[in-house]
């Protein structure tokens, strides 16, 4: 599958207005979305060719095998995305601090949050580096997604030759206009805990208000995406980019949708 993208930076003060504009444009209410995103980096295990070790028993579909092949072919960063809800976050009371400590130190936290790491569903999202030298002014890249087993994902990912790099939270709203998925989002960082090393994903979530935006001013990123099943179909790709240009034209007075810098979306692990 291919993905065609346009991006725009949205200053914080414009966020609310843009939400309303998008709601008007797409004639739908925003769908709020919170996602845990884990970044994994491929490393070449000596002797690892196609061995698939453990924990992948319940997903052995055809696309899983294809994905496996793809993942072992090159060395890429890849993302594991898990949807969460606000209720999953730690309590916002005064015990928040101790709770977040507990989260890092032990799994048997005494907080009342319903978040259960073992039941966290995950989705593997592979994104290639955007295609170079495309004539059209949209970012085009190969993509693939597959659902992963629930629960602790670090072990199977390690087995596949991926090491955990970092994780963050993405908070935003999704709109859909025809074939375009509009995602107005921003990156939230977990509070820095002293015991936090890049061992693996968190078992517990801190209180929501402890998350800090990556961008200090709280600005958002507007992403407009069209997914094309058959990327080799030039006609389809052209139509899709035409649709994106149409959206860009409609939003011209509000934001400037642009092609992203190719290297900033470089997923190759060097």
């Amino acid at each position, binding site marked *: 599958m291919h993905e065609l993208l346009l991006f725009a930076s949205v200053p914080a003060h414009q966020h609310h207005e843009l939400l309303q504009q998008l709601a008007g444009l797409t004639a739908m209410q925003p769908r709020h979305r919170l996602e845990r995103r884990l*970044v994994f980096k491929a490393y070449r295990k000596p002797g690892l060719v196609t061995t698939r070790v453990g924990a992948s028993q319940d997903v052995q579909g055809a696309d899983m095998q294809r994905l496996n092949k793809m993942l072992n072919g090159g060395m890429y960063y890849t993302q594991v995305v898990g949807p969460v809800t606000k209720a999953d976050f730690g309590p916002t009371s005064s015990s928040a601090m101790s709770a977040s400590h507990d989260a890092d130190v032990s799994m048997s936290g005494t907080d009342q949050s319903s978040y259960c790491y073992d039941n966290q569903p995950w989705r593997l999202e592979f994104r290639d580096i955007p295609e170079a030298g495309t004539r059209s002014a949209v970012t085009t890249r190969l993509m693939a997604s597959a659902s992963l087993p629930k629960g602790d994902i670090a072990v199977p990912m390690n087995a596949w030759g991926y090491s955990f790099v970092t994780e963050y939270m993405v908070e935003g709203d999704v709109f859909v206009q025809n074939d375009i998925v509009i995602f107005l989002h921003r990156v939230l960082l977990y509070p820095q805990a002293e015991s936090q090393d890049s061992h693996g994903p968190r078992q517990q979530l801190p209180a929501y208000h402890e998350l800090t935006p990556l961008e200090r*001013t709280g600005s958002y990123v507007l992403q407009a995406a069209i997914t094309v099943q058959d990327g080799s179909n030039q006609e389809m790709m052209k139509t899709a980019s035409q649709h994106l240009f149409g959206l860009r034209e409609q939003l011209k007075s509000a934001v400037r949708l642009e092609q992203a810098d190719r290297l900033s979306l470089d997923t190759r692990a060097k």
Partner: protein
Amino acid sequence: MSSLTPDQIKTLEQSRQRLVQLTHSLGSLITSLNQSDPLPSWTSLQSQATIISNNLLTISDHLSDNRALLATLVAYPAPSYPARNPANTVALEQLLRTKLDPRVEDWVARGRKAGDTGPGQGHGLDDLAALAALWDWAPVEANLEARRRNWGGNFTLEERERGVGNVVTGLRRVLEDDDDDSESGSEEEEGEEESGDEEGEGEPDEMEVVGVRRKSGVAQGLEFDIAPAASGHAAPLTVVAPVVPLDEILRFMTVGIMPSQR
């Protein structure tokens, strides 16, 4: 039914000749535009246009001179006319039309319209003195009208006098009438304007240019009224440009490199 006198036939002949001339000159203009490469020089175009316009003038004169005759003439086919020949039939139909050709009808309608609205009708451009007087009058009047208003704010003076609450704006949000104090005196207003200027020099705060007027007294130069952003705003949104560029955010999202680490 009387037959035509030689004079009348001569008149008809003349009309025909002049129309043929006009057709010729129009045709040559069209061919020169269509075929010559590069386009004919503007002098030759102009001379051709002059010829055509002279042709038109003579035809127009001729037609109006012989209006009485031409308006009463009726054409009909003589029994000897070889109407069986299809080519002749076409000519016959053309000659016996009582209405104009649809194309020609359009042209005539357009011409009539142009004639109606043209300079012949109103005073238009002919009356240069009146035009100049209008130009003299208009800027001053517009200026006076503009000065009568206090630009800025959400309501006009009339609306405020009648009571701001009665104004139907059609807006859901409540417009602040932040201009109340400006009625108390013009000095205060001046002060406001200055403070607005100061604000403008500092942070890129919200401001809007609300009015432009000629500087009083001096002939040239414009004055801008800069109204400070409505201070009564419920929560003044600070305009802060994003610090981290989009690329850095995307890079972090992709590979987890913190923006500061590069």
